[in-house]
């Protein structure tokens, strides 16, 4: 446990995070995705049928505390745009639970 993060309840108590942001980042369709293409080829070589284009992306989970879901979403959405994804090459989907 990280000793620097404590809950308002007192030092040493584990922090309870009420929400979780789940973010899926994928390469834009127009962007070359050699990883996806290689995985697709491998699946076909393994004998799997009906395989179409494969896109390899990233999945991020962020534990969150905050006033409400909407505020949290706004904040994380901004972070997705500014930092967690690069709009030049990637799209993202964000869910707050």
């Amino acid at each position, binding site marked *: 446990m990280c000793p620097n993060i404590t809950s308002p309840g007192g030092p040493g108590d584990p922090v309870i995070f009420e929400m979780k942001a789940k973010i899926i980042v994928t*390469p834009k369709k*127009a*962007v*070359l995705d*050699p*990883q996806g293409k*290689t995985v697709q080829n491998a699946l076909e070589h393994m004998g799997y049928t009906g395989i179409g284009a494969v896109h390899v992306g990233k999945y991020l989970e962020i534990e969150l505390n905050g006033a409400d879901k909407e505020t949290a979403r706004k904040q994380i959405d901004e972070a997705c745009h500014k*930092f*967690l994804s*690069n709009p*030049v*090459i990637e799209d993202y989907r964000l869910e707050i639970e």
Partner: protein
Amino acid sequence: MNFAVLQFPASNCDQDAVHVLRTVLGHSARLVWHKEHSLGDADAVVVPGGFSYGDYLRTGAIARFSPVMQALQNFAANGGPVLGICNGFQILCEAGLLPGALIRNRSLQFRCEHVFLKTVTAESPFTNRIPNDKLLCVPIAHGEGCYFADEPTLERLKAQNQVLWRYVNAQGETSDQANPNGSLDHIAGICNERRNVAGLMPHPERASESILGCADGRLIFESLIHALENKQVARAA
């Protein structure tokens, strides 16, 4: 001239850049740690190669939020010349100082070899001393060097003469074989619209002395020094 060479955690070409600027070319060069908020009296800035922040998330994505980057943004906005090499190019793209992005090499392989570059235009502070027909032999060493920009951006780059270098073969021709990473339009390096910020994936600082087998990279630094000495670029400090 006074050069600032930025230093991020896991920069690894910073010392090479300082060596070339100081020892080979006889100018002053100072390392600037990424937590600094000022570039001091720098006339020009080199953002060197490496693997800043372990290339976590995306190459250059975390370095671009280091404190020194605000100073770099201001420096560039005032017209100060900035050269990004390899990871430095990736950082400048992430920072929005250059258009586009560098993505995984099409081959998925880390490529470490010498390539030939054709200089597309001498009209920039980074290319003005490169003879028209001269091919530059310089090394590359990257896994994410495939230049990507959307179609309108690419058209704008070409229309405004912002492509500075393309990968070519020994005969000076572009071809898929001579393109080591799948870069769109064989692009190895570009500059911004104002022409004071440039980035390239190859390493001119590793090819600036004949003892290293090739000294062509020197021409890029000499161009920059020439531009500064002739006040073709602002001394923004």
